[in-house]
């Protein structure tokens, strides 16, 4: 399968959106484009697994390599392994759901959808890149639309949030580029941006120790590494619904993926050197984020803070440096992406009808919006890690992997992280109880339930969540070989 389709199709969709003449056309093209992306992503999985089953043992499949700047050894090198494929599927699911919930955006519809699709393209490009220069290029493509989406279509203190988000993410990017250049020049005579070449050459330990923090913190900022997480609550809360979904569902995953693929994989000794730091920061993020969530009375802030807590599991999994934990980290990325997108989608549905996001101003909505509330409930159950939904298997895998480190330090970190499951239950049930249960307020008695597009968006995401929760082996088998290669690199095999 030709991976260029993954960039070509969004590009075509984006151009189509720009050329269309009215809102109706914009929506149809965006919908068709994103539906095709999902089909493409599913086809990619199918062909990928078929190749693997047929005995393809190469680390990356469907590779393509074109020289961009031969004098600097910069190449347009793309290819995917199971980890990338699962991230692509996540992206495709979230994009389609995001397009569906944005059906009623009236203000500058064309530009809105254009930016959404552009962001998606950046994400696809990022996940398939095997050249750090190209990867960085796509990372930046995914940042700019966020700034515009929040600044233009946002709500609340949107200018502040947009600035904060863009500046903090730019700081992250600048750290990343320093780290990438460090590897480029630190690779002895043979300067290269190529992930495969760099990993085979093996960067010297001194360079790794120096530049690992740049890359890890840089990417970490994207995925809410404590204490560089404060763009998350403001950014998500000010963004329009689809913007929040993309932000939490896709773009935070760019960071996690980068931490794993670039920082940890290319600099395994650096990762070992700093692993206790990663563990400390991520377990703080998990529990601290959960406690901070308890104090949030705005649904979006609540979900944003809980994202900090949940993304902590991704970094914890990476920091634990065991095969199981790393597999769990990737599963958590997919799971959190779907779950949080669902959460933001349902918050958007509620807000559109009640015109408030304050938890204490709502009540008894179960009576008038049973579908929406059921979706909220499912998102909540997934968030608190109930079996049957993806959150449970992902978090459990991370914990299982963490516990394999038998010393006191790792044990305590794991227990601290584990404690969050109690705190999470507290804030999730409190929110659901306030919003859905109890006596209904008179002003809300006439509200309507979700429309067809919203229902479809929710169902798409729920199918993903339940499929992973009930049959985790589907995702697991995909990720395992990739995680194994990364882990072998770390343990020096």
């Amino acid at each position: 399968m030709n991976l260029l389709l993954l960039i070509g199709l969004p590009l075509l969709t984006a151009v189509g959106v720009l050329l269309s003449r009215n809102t109706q056309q914009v929506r149809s093209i965006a919908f068709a484009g994103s539906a095709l992306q999902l089909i493409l992503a599913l086809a990619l999985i199918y062909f990928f697994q078929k190749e693997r089953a047929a005995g393809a043992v190469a680390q990356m499949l469907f590779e393509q390599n074109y020289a961009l700047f031969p004098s600097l050894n910069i190449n347009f090198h793309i290819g995917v392994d199971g980890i990338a494929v699962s991230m692509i599927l996540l992206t495709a699911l979230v994009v389609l759901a995001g397009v569906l919930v944005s059906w009623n955006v009236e203000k500058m519809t064309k530009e809105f959808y254009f930016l959404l699709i552009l962001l998606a393209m950046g994400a696809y490009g990022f996940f398939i890149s095997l050249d750090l220069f190209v990867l960085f290029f796509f990372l930046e493509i995914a940042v700019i639309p966020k700034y515009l989406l929040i600044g233009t279509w946002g709500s609340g203190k949107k200018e502040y949030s947009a600035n904060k988000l863009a500046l903090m993410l730019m700081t992250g990017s600048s750290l990343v580029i320093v780290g990438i250049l460090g590897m480029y020049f630190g690779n002895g005579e043979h300067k290269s941006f190529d992930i495969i070449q760099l990993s085979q050459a093996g960067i010297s330990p001194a360079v790794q120790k120096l530049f690992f923090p740049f890359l890890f913190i840089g990417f970490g900022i994207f995925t809410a590494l404590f204490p560089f997480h404060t763009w998350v609550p403001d950014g998500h809360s000010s963004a329009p619904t689809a913007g929040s979904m993309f932000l939490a569902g896709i773009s935070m995953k760019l960071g996690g993926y980068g931490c794993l693929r670039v920082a940890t994989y290319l600099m395994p000794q650096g990762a070992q050197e700093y692993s206790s730091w990663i563990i400390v920061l991520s377990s703080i993020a998990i529990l601290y984020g959960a406690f901070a969530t308890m104090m949030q009375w705005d649904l979006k802030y609540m979900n944003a803070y809980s994202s900090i807590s949940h993304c902590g599991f991704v970094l914890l999994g990476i920091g634990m440096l065991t095969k199981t934990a790393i597999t769990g980290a990737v599963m958590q990325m997919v799971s959190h992406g779907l779950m949080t997108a669902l959460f933001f989608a349902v918050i958007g549905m509620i807000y559109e009808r009640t015109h408030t996001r304050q938890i204490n101003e709502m009540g008894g909505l179960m009576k008038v919006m049973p579908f929406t509330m059921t979706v909220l409930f499912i998102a909540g159950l997934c968030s608190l890690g109930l079996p049957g939904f993806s959150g449970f298997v992902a978090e459990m895998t991370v914990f299982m992997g963490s516990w394999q480190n038998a010393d006191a330090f790792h044990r305590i970190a794991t227990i601290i992280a584990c404690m969050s499951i109690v705190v999470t239950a507290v804030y999730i049930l409190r929110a659901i109880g306030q919003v859905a249960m109890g006596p209904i307020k008179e002003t809300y008695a006439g509200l309507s339930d979700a429309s067809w597009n919203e229902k479809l968006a929710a169902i798409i995401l729920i199918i993903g969540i339940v499929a992973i929760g009930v049959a985790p082996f589907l995702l697991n088998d995909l990720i395992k070989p990739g995680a194994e290669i990364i882990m072998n690199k770390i343990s020096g095999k």
Partner: protein
Amino acid sequence: MSNILNYIWLVPLFPLIGFLINGLGRNFLSKTLVSFIACGALLASFVVSVYFFISVKEGNHELVKLFDFISVGKLSIPFEFQIDALSSLFLLIITGVGFLIHLYSTAYMHEESNAHYARYFAYLNLFVFSMLLLVLGGNYVIMFIGWEGVGLCSYLLIGYWFKNTDYNNAAKKAFIMNRIGDLGFLLAVFWIIQQFGSVSFGEVFANAESKSTAVLTGITLLLFIGATGKSAQIPLYTWLPDAMAGPTPVSALIHAATMVTAGIYMIARSNILYTLAPTTQSVVAVIGLATAIFAATIAIKQNDIKKVLAYSTVSQLGYMFLGLGVGAYTGAVFHVMTHAFFKALLFLGAGSVIHAMHHEQDIRNMGGLRKKLPITHLTFLLGCIAIAGIPPFSGFFSKDEILAAAYEASPVYWIVGVAGAMMTAFYMFRLYATTFLGNFRGTKEQEHHLHESPWAMTVPLIVLAILAVIGGFVGIPKVFAENAHSLEHFLSPIFTQSEELVKKDHALSHSTEYMLMGVSVALALIAILYAVNRYSKKPELQDAEGFGKVLANKWYVDEIYDAIISKPLKAISIFFNNVIEKSGIDGFVNGIGEGVQYASRQLRLLQSGQVGSYILLMVLGMIILMVVQFFIK
């Protein structure tokens, strides 16, 4: 014959289908159809369970692997069902008692609207499905999935009347307290994985003896924390009395007969781990005994019919843990079974009373219901006698078995246990006498509407009453007849490994055993006579005072928990959010932004465009350079 057991997945499948149909079709299915589907699913499960039970009784057992749930690293966790003596016994209890309660619910919940009626039965079926997963699971992970599933259903059903905020809070409390326990369970599972490289019961138990006592003690204690949550033991028991907010059949099914016994099932299943960790066993015994007596004291002063039964359940569960702690695994499972019969009966009887009294639950407003509700009265009385431990009712045999084993472990256990049993007899007959004897104390309106419940409610009462009376005969102790304890014989394959480790050198002599029995029965009888005599004539109508008030207020445990746990946790959240997050980190981030702006403002001043100041700066710079060169070289 053994391959028939490969179809064991049928048992949980029926309730799952029932859940899906009723859950998805709740807006268009009629009540009759809903009841038919829900009860039919349970009946089908029950019939199949009986079939499997017979097969197991013939000596078959099977580990049925359905698919690989997840495999990471070297570990693979299969989705597997284990069907053997222990799980097949629980299957019978769950589906059998479950079916009766489903049937009862069709009448009890009849006033609900169509959609809510269907929702109720969907939840109930989902609960049975999860519970079956819990007992059938062939490894700790599948057990945990069921464990969490029943917790969710418990939450959903306690908060079934979701418009009432208090009920929601009770549901929330139940879930969160269970979560604390689940944390322990989960950590134990991770530890097991790390130690054994597997979670399957067979592999874990086979290798248990090669592990150090310290590790096993850690694992079993963590598992026990899980059990204290689910099975409402000190310190995590306070959710269960609040859980009475749910509909009464739910209390009977979930909070008496099945879910709350999950902790006992789990420990009985892991018996070899506990036998190898004597410290944990002592902890289990002491916590169980403490809970048994503590909850019994509270039950004495409660005036809500369901609250009395709730504390009684907590107390009886304590006895089961005492049994587990002193190694009487069969006795604990036996008590689970008899308790399922008589406690489900008592709850359903209470439901029948509440139904007749139009949602009145305060026993001070009842009295004299004996004549108006004859079937309810008679069955309730039988249940009370059974729980009080009067021979030959079922409760006598199971409780006696636990107490005898407790005496062997330590006479102190026995003394405290018998004191608790005496209190049990007392509060149960206080409840019985206040509710059914004396004169009616309710309103005229209530008296006018008093009626016996419809057949769908009385039939389950009668069936359960029969079981509560004769259920004990499967476990007749040796002192009465040799080899008459058929339950022990049936369950022996599960507990052989433990029994081989603890070779009993001295059993109690027959005369001691007779004496122990005699004392406990005599004390129970005295308590019964005193309670009936006192409360049939002059029921307690005033609020309790003095020490009684402390009991009526449940030793103020909720208030204490609020002060030492909830409030500090809230303070931590506030500190994290307001101080660290807002002022600390965010203040720093914004500070950088402001700092950069400030610095640029200052730097801008340098570019003033005045040639004079540029020359001044240039000269200054040259002087500095000269000075530096001159001195530093």
